[in-house]
């Protein structure tokens, strides 16, 4: 019964979304307010329907209703409840269903917030977002239908992919990713709304500003949660492998980051109108492309992709979106002229332009490296992969340049910089850069990229902190208050700006963690008998005993280890191999001991059946926790910028007054 309920909800969502698209478009043409209103109701109704469909699926999973195709695919009686619930997004059909929920929620919320305020723009934006919905609901009743009937229903199922049920982070990473990914549909929808309605001023940017920031913050968290998962689960001690799935999540982040900066240039200076439209279209298309890459099976093989129809649906949708939006942009190109021009090369907008250039080049490189093997296989029938060295060679220079610019932007004013003032501001950051370089060299660091990255991080960190320090000091002098309230007042005075600087500091923190864990890493692979130890970088890891445990949903073999520092016991670790029923090879489950200065990471690589020896991979990764911490700071920055203060962005067609640079 629950199967029929879920299926009906999906079919109804498809019908109602299709109606909504037509109703909104026709309603605007005929100036029929009732029709436009009914299109908005379609958006609300769709959210309710998707909520029902998703709850039905969760109910089916939890009650082990194996007559539902999807439950029979990913469910199992032995799987713990938490992993049963999150297996909603562990496979193709369920993840599309969940996508539908997030999309319908965002659409409903965006439509509700802007209801009756934006006229044709709002109605067209609703039509565009519902149109995206039509595509996903079509998948749900067509090639990705999770509601198929399995008859007779099996008694039990295989359970979700073991990699996905081996760590709690799988309950965090995919929803964050979808929240971030799908969030990009809202600015895209309003951009299309602006193009269709001809209301090409900054309204669409201002209305969707919060959405972009929120989606970007969630996407940032999602990408780092993915890195963290890969670090905690995959067992090779790294957090990024330029895997197509990782690249898929990263590319929209790059273009969205570019967009957030270039949107400011448009709002402040009236420049880059066509560019901003293109960036948000690109960001949206990249989210769809990412889903296509991860969900069509095309990565493992072009042939796997051509076996199922879903890949063609995605390709067709991407083609439609690209053709329609590019035609719209081209059609409006004369109306999208800039109404300002670049006054001076030394200004914040110039830095933003360079930032956009670098981020675009970055996206282009990752896109090419990701797509090349697919194209090569399709055209020449040869299986190739693009090695990680390609990505590293091409993107490391871009990364360090961006890391440097994160410090330059905040120190430069809009329009024209006063060079003396700029030089005065660079003093402390420059000092930080030099001191860091000297200290790193003294400590024996010789890796060129490491030296550059650490010193640029110091430069940018100092530059961004300086902005807070100067602003706080000025407020304190003026108000005679204390430091902390002055700082809070400063942030509240312009949450968008200072939230941005907090996000900068988070990115710098992440960059420090990435640099430390890459260039300072050391590892050793050794076989030990019970009682013997492995020593690495100040740690002594003693192998005590090999054990096995027959658990309800898996069979675990583990090694009990004692960690010693200077002959003093400081803790215990237990890396394992988890064997899941029906899968040949076990899942490596490393044991990680995290400390602010370094992580100790141990993997059980191999063992003797009788427990007489174990081969352990011991890795020491300095500073790696700062990658994760940095992502929280980034998200906090996004949050501050969203809810931090009085100056809320209201829907108003009037351009804000000329920017007032704060006296420093």
């Amino acid at each position, binding site marked *: 019964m629950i199967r029929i309920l879920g299926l009906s909800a999906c079919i109804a969502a498809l019908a109602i979304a299709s109606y909504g698209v037509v109703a909104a478009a026709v309603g605007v043409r005929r100036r029929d307010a009732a029709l436009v209103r009914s299109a908005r109701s379609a958006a609300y109704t769709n959210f309710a329907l998707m909520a029902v469909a998703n709850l039905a699926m969760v109910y089916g999973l939890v009650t082990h209703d194996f007559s539902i195709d999807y439950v029979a695919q990913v469910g199992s009686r032995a799987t713990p409840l938490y992993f049963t619930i999150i297996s909603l997004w562990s496979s193709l059909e369920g993840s599309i269903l969940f996508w539908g929920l997030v999309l319908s929620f965002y659409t409903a919320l965006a439509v509700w917030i802007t209801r009756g305020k934006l006229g044709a723009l709002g109605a067209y934006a609703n039509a565009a977002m519902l149109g995206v919905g039509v595509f996903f609901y079509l998948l749900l009743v067509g090639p990705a239908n999770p509601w198929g009937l399995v008859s007779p229903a099996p008694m039990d199922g295989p359970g979700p992919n073991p990699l996905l049920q081996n760590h709690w982070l799988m309950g965090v990473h995919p929803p964050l990713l979808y929240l971030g990914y799908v969030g990009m549909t809202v600015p895209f929808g309003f951009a299309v709304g602006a193009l269709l309605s001809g209301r090409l001023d900054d309204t669409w940017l201002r209305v969707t500003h919060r959405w972009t920031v929120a989606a970007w913050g969630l996407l940032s968290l999602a990408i780092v949660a993915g890195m963290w998962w890969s670090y905690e689960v995959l067992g090779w001690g790294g957090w990024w492998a330029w895997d197509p799935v990782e690249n898929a999540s990263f590319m929209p982040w790059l273009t969205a980051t570019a967009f957030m900066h270039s949107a400011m240039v448009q709002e402040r200076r009236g420049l880059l109108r066509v560019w901003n439209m293109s960036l948000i279209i690109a960001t949206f298309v990249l989210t769809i492309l990412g889903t296509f890459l991860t969900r069509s099976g095309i990565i493992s093989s072009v042939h796997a992709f051509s076996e199922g129809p879903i890949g063609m649906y995605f390709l067709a949708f991407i083609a439609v979106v690209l053709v329609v939006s590019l035609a719209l942009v081209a059609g409006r190109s004369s109306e999208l002229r800039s109404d300002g021009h670049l006054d001076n090369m030394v200004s914040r907008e110039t830095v933003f332009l360079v930032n956009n250039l670098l981020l675009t080049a970055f996206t*282009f490189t990752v896109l090419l*490296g990701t797509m*090349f093997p697919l194209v090569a296989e399709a055209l020449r029938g040869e299986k190739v992969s693009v090695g990680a060295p390609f990505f590293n060679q*091409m993107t490391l220079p871009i990364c360090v340049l961006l890391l440097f610019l994160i410090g330059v932007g905040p120190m430069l004013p809009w329009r024209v910089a006063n060079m003396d003032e700029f030089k005065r501001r660079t003093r402390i950051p420059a000092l930080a850069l030099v001191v860091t370089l000297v200290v790193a060299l003294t400590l024996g660091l010789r890796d060129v990229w490491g030296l550059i990255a650490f010193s640029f991080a110091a430069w940018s960190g100092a530059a961004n902190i300086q902005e807070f320090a100067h602003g706080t000091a000025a407020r304190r002098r003026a108000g005679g208050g204390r430091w902390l309230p002055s700082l809070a007042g400063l942030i509240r005075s312009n949450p968008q700006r200072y939230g941005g600087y907090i996000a900068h500091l988070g990115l710098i923190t992440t960059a420090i963690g990435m640099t430390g864990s890459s260039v300072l890493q050391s590892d050793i*692979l050794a076989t030990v008998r019970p009682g013997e130890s492995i020593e690495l970088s100040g740690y002594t890891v003693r192998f005590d005993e090999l054990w096995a445990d027959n658990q309800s949903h898996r069979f675990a073999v583990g090694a009990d280890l004692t960690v010693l520092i200077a002959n003093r016991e400081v803790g215990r670790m237990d890396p394992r191999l988890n064997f899941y*029923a029906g899968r040949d*090879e076990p899942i490596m489950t490393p044991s990680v001991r995290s400390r602010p200065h370094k992580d100790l990471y141990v993997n059980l690589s191999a063992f003797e059946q009788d427990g007489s020896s174990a081969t352990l991979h011991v890795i020491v990764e300095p500073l790696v926790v700062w990658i994760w911490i940095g992502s929280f700071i980034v998200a906090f920055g996004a949050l501050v910028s969203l809810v931090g203060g009085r100056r809320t962005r209201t829907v108003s067609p009037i351009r804000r007054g000329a920017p007032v640079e704060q006296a420093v």
Partner: protein
Amino acid sequence: MTGGRRKIGFALAVVVVLSSFGYLVYGGIGENLVFFHTPGELLAKGAQAYDRPYRLGGQVVPGTMTWNAEAVDLRFTMQDVDGQIVVHSTKAPPAMFREGQGVVVEGKLNRDGVFEASTVMVKHSNEYRPPADGHPKPEDTYRSLIRES
């Protein structure tokens, strides 16, 4: 007409920057392509096969695997219908590494004809398979390790 000139200059600059960047990327990809071959295909390349990274897919020849745990030294022969290559690695074999098993290794072919692998992976599919009769269950294989408590 300075506006027009400025525009042309700007467009030229963009073209120059884009094409040099494109050239860099294209060259970078060419140098870093990792081809996927079977042992037979790699052998057919002769001397061309040296000094480049490759991924090699084939089967472990029964009776050829030696794993020296003390020295962390793995050696086995990989084959397909057209040929055999000896693989050496200083990594541990994957836990379910069996003779006759399909494997994928990544590394370089040394001039002595031994393939030095930096990674050794069991070829697997994510699809569920019902437990095959021939494969012993881990709870039977590692029964002696289960702790009494």
